[in-house]
């Protein structure tokens, strides 16, 4: 940037600046990045180990039992058929790796998104600051995130997971903020009027009443995480995404379609389970009981 700026032939090296800043960042915070790498990789590996350890039939029974418990026997039947299909297509291991990636990414995303959403709901300033950041996170082509994360963490599951978290988290923040703001003002006032503390109002009134909407946000986070599995595979995450990438590079339709079907089964299963959990929120249940 030693040459002077010519307005008629503008050249702003935004990319270089960001890249320089990024290099400085990775150099300076290397210990932090190592820690993040260890934690994310460890969490992922642990979940994969747990999900992959039992024989697939046992896992299918467990998934079906969960489906039955939160929803219905019909959903349990769907679960058995769907997951059995995955196993029959020989995509079981990939599916468990993908499920692990999605669960860990969505869990961490939720862990960050919900407190941020609560904070934004309480402070207009935070809300105003956060809005453009969230827009940026969601509209920046997701593949762009891969480049710096790849640079910082190297090939493996971690860059894909961080990209997934960044891309999938915004709806979690937005839904949480909306949910808290939508809680009936009068009920919050009732809390204040009887001398409840802000923390207590949050815990006893705002969060329970906002829970169904927050759950819808978490559902969005999970779905967006699933949509990222192919991208994550491009930087070395194992799982169904890898099958799709491999299918694409070798024009192998069969492999791609099978992996795609497995993703659909996972998506439907996760969506139904989470929305069933939202329906079991105390507020929803209390409004449903009839005299």
């Amino acid at each position, binding site marked *: 940037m030693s040459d002077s700026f010519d307005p008629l032939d503008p050249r702003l090296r935004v990319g270089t600046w960001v890249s320089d800043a990024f290099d400085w960042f990775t150099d300076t915070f290397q210990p932090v990045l190592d820690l993040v790498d260890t934690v994310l990789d460890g969490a992922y590996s642990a979940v994969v180990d747990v999900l992959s350890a039992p024989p697939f039939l046992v896992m299918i029974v467990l998934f079906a039992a969960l489906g039955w418990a939160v929803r219905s026997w019909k959903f349990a039947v769907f679960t058995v058929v769907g997951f059995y299909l995955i196993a029959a297509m020989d995509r079981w291991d990939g599916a468990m790796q993908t499920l692990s990636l999605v669960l860990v990414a969505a869990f961490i995303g939720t862990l960050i998104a919900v407190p941020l959403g609560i*904070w934004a709901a*309480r*402070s*207009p300033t935070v*809300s105003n600051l956060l809005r453009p950041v969230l827009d940026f996170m969601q509209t920046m082509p997701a593949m762009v995130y891969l480049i710096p994360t790849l640079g910082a963490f190297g090939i493996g599951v971690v860059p894909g997971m961080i990209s997934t978290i960044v891309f999938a988290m915004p709806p979690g923040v937005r839904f949480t903020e909306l949910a808290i*703001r939508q809680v*009936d003002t*009068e*009920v919050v*006032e*009732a*809390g*204040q*009027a*009887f*001398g*409840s*503390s*802000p*923390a*207590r109002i949050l815990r*006893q*009134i705002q969060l*329970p*009443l906002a829970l169904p909407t927050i759950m819808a946000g978490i559902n969005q986070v999970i779905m967006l995480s699933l949509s990222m599995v192919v991208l994550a595979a491009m930087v070395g995450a194992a799982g169904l995404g890898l099958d799709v990438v491999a299918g694409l590079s070798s024009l192998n339709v069969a492999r791609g379609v099978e992996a795609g079907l497995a993703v659909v089964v996972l998506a439907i299963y996760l969506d139904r389970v989470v929305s069933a959990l939202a329906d079991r*929120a*105390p*507020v929803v*249940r*209390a*409004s*449903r*009981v*009839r*005299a």
Partner: protein
Amino acid sequence: MPAVPLSPSLASLVAWLTGRLDSRAPKRARWTRCVAWQTNEGEGVTALRAEGLFKVFGRGADDAVRRLRDGASRADVVAQGATPAVIDASFEVQPGEIFVVMGLSGSGKSTLIRMLNGLWEPTAGHVYIDGVDISGIGAAQLREVRQRKISMVFQHFALLPHRTVAENAAYALDIQGRPKDEQRAKAAEALELVGLGGWEDRYPAQLSGGMQQRVGLARALAAGSDIMLMDEAFSALDPLIRREMQDQLLELQASLGKTVVFITHDLNEAMRLGDRIAVMRDGRIVQVGTAEEVLRDPANDYVAQFVADVDRTRVLTASSVMVPAQLQVNASAGPRVALHGMRDKQLSAAFVVARDRKLRGVVRDEAVVASVNRGDSTLESIVDSDVASVHPDTVLAELFAPSAESVLPLAVVDDDGRLLGVIPRVTLLTAMASLAEAQPDLEVVR
């Protein structure tokens, strides 16, 4: 997010979030905990006093207050970008009084009531609860005031939908940190008071609007505070239920002696409930007085116009129009006494009372004559106990139907069954006619 300035509570939320509550809480608290309360209790201080309260939204709020104090009109201030919701409101509420704040929507009454318990911080002015200024005290102390001194009933009930009726009623006690069994006992007691015994385990969604508001009322009663703020508490209920709730509130207030500040846009409700009524318009209190004062002597054209539509038959009561019975005889007296009285006053019937003035019924001329001919010694055998009677507090509007159905005057009977007076049909009609005439005309008639 509504575009309003930070309310004190919201500001404290932010403070809490950033963990700086302690360093930021104002230190000008005028009292510490209960000490100040104890010195002020039982000395005949007003329960609640508002002194020069202002609430101005928008830019330049403090400046707007200054100009309003200097006599600027509301429109002047609005033109400069500030929105005054409450302008210079001052009043006192005595212990055990029902003080009604009445005004149309947008008159500032909801903002006013929210300043009384600090939900909104006044732009200027002071609120005294039991003689202690609550404006500018710290967040923690304000919470203490709300727990101990002042409770609230909301227009749309504001119950916690995920908690049972009993848990909702016990909410304030839970916040106060009382033991669980005490919570349960007091909640049950309060629910019993409002007629919801046996509904403890239901959820609000299972209750009708009227019942939900009873839970809201029970929650406020269980809190044990002396002052209750009621924000359009019955406005969301349909008219019959509203009447019922008004009656219940009057009963509860008579037995428990709570101090009530009641907000309403319904003048008839204000007249029915209010010991005193404050009429609000465009943020200002334009008149404070009893229902009769407001009706008889409106402070300005606005109030006059407002009360012009008031159905006076719903304000005035049977006791205000009743007249003494023309003829009442003792049940122990003989038919000859009754006959003599009836002939004397040219009447065809007479009211019969027992020795303690309790109404026994009526006797009619034919029966009395027959009784005289039979030689009866008392009226006992011919007393007809089927008499149309009303309570002295019954409003005129409710007298028309029984009056139309009854040939005899309506008997006005108190709770103990004593005959206080009667209302002949012609008296009722005369009362109506004189209500229809505007009061100023009286002098011309004279």
